[in-house]
């Protein structure tokens, strides 16, 4: 007689993705951080009278201390306060550029989707063509033509980042066009323009808004990269990229704190923005919940 004993199989971890964690887990910390960043960036320049060009060579190149949490730079300016300014500049650039790129993208996508036919095909091929040029390189070309400035950077970001929203809007418009309420509007005598502006675009709006929020970190990143290469905002303007670029020199003589703070703040802000918009996206399209971004 064989000894038949039942042994429990050790619990294996080879299981499918568990149920997504409660959105609150992501929303609360991200929203808190975002609120703190937004408040700081908006309020601090109002409250603290900070001449950010204020130079005090006596306290230059000081490592972090109680008086200067992230130290001072080579001109004796407080790194943390300068970071607040830099973040303010970078976020402004990012938001403006993201909005412009969303407008361009929505226009292209809506036209392509609602007119259709060869027009659609040509526009979408154009989108594919622009998508094949590396973003930063195209951005560099645009900045080179317009010369480095705030406007040039914003245009450069807007002209390289409209593709995503164009694709989203087009596919949304295509799927909306097949819905009965559009047929009803057309039967009711609505003109093409009216269908587009009163029926199609309002229904695309939430998706566009979401895409724009998700675009902000990309835009900020692009601005930072351009500034770091010396092709972004003018050197005296504080932006995250400029600060890191400036800090490069100090790094060689041991001043690590000057680049630490801007980078960390940028990471935290980016994570917070994508955290909040990620929760929002999950609400909007539950099917795409498994997507890669946070």
């Amino acid at each position, binding site marked *: 007689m064989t000894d038949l004993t039942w042994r429990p199989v050790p619990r*294996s*971890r*080879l*299981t*499918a*993705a*568990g149920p997504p964690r409660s959105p609150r887990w992501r929303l609360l910390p991200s929203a808190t951080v975002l609120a703190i960043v937004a408040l700081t960036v908006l309020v601090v320049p109002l409250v603290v009278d900070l001449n950010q060009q204020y130079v005090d060579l006596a306290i230059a190149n000081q490592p972090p201390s109680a008086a200067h949490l992230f130290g001072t730079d080579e001109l004796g300016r407080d790194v943390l306060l300068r970071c607040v300014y830099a973040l303010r500049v970078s976020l402004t650039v990012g938001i403006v550029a993201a909005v412009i790129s969303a407008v361009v993208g929505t226009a292209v996508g809506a036209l392509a989707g609602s007119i259709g036919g060869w027009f659609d095909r040509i526009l979408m*091929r*154009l989108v*594919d*063509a622009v*998508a*094949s*040029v*590396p*973003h*930063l*390189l*195209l951005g*560099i*070309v*645009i*900045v*080179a*033509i*317009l010369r480095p400035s705030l406007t040039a950077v914003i245009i450069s970001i807007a002209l390289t980042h409209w593709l995503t929203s164009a694709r989203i809007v087009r596919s949304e418009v295509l799927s909306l066009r097949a819905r009965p309420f559009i047929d009803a509007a057309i039967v009711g005598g609505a003109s093409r323009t009216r269908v587009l502006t009163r029926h199609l675009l309002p229904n695309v709006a939430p998706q566009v808004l979401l895409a724009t929020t998700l675009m902000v*970190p990309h835009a900020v*990143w692009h601005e*930072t*990269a351009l500034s*770091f*290469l*010396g*092709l972004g905002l003018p050197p005296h303007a504080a932006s*995250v*990229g400029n600060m*890191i670029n400036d*800090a*490069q020199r100090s*790094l*060689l003589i*041991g001043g*690590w704190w000057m*680049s*630490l703070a*801007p*980078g960390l703040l*940028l*990471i935290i802000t*980016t*994570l917070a923005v*994508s955290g909040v918009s990620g929760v929002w996206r999950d609400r909007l399209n539950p099917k795409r919940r*498994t997507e*890669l971004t*946070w």
Partner: protein
Amino acid sequence: MIRSIGRLTLRRLAFAVPVLLVVSFALFVLAKASPFDPVERYFGVRIIGASPERVAQLRANWGVDEPVVAQYWAWLRHAVAGDLGDSLSLQQPVSAVIGDRLGWTVLLVSVGFTLALLLGLVLGTLAAWRQGSWLDRLITGGCYALEAAPVFWVGLAVLYVFALQLRWLPGGGVTTGSEPVSVGGVAVHMVLPVAVLAISQAPWFVLFVRQNLLESFTQDHVIGARARGLPDHLVVSGHALRTSLLPFLTLLGARLPELITGALLVETVFSWPGIARATVEAALNVDFALLGALTVMATGVVLLGNLLADVLYALADPRVALDG
């Protein structure tokens, strides 16, 4: 099979040629629309003393006052023949400028990309296998943080720690001092830039592999393999990973633009003698001959990469409808 891959290749090439033409023409028009006059640029301050005849002669020689289309046609004719014009900022033929630097960039990018892929596969598999464990959280958390961090900031941090503080590895260039370029020397100098490029590109692959593995754990053949009593590591490597790798192939192509962007920034941080420096110089000096050639070239590489990824996909999975 071979024939359909040939058709795919032909169709993609038929798309690539117009794209390259459109991109180069658009760049050309943009350059023309900019307020920069190459002749004035060439003379610089000396234009004050230069005789009007000489300026006029140069204008005629360079053909700067001809219509855009005629100029573009002239450029295209020469470009096809391999003559990309002269770089104004570096005073060298564009082909020589690119030729000197391209090898270094290709070296950095290819090794960095391979390493990023390996990291992605290994870490992604580990994270999926131990889903929910501290290891998984560490890996995914680290990936999200790295995705949000600017490449050059990571580069500076690595430079500071390993080259300036610990002094383990050289932090810039390809040689130390005046010693000649040698394989060993380059290998040592390569470690930091390649590592930074790899860890900045890896997060995306890691998260992708993890996600796809988790999805494939619910598929029938994986459940079947587990039901037959195969050990977990065999199921993961032999059954789950294989099927989830297919979509990975197309993503390799899609990731190329980011890779080129990342390489530009990493090269700048580590003073790598690749094309990054030339690109920035060209942009600062409005050197369109060089800038345009670099952009068109990068676009060509991206299109080629996409084609290659699609062909590999078709080879790996014959079910793929090639005429989609």
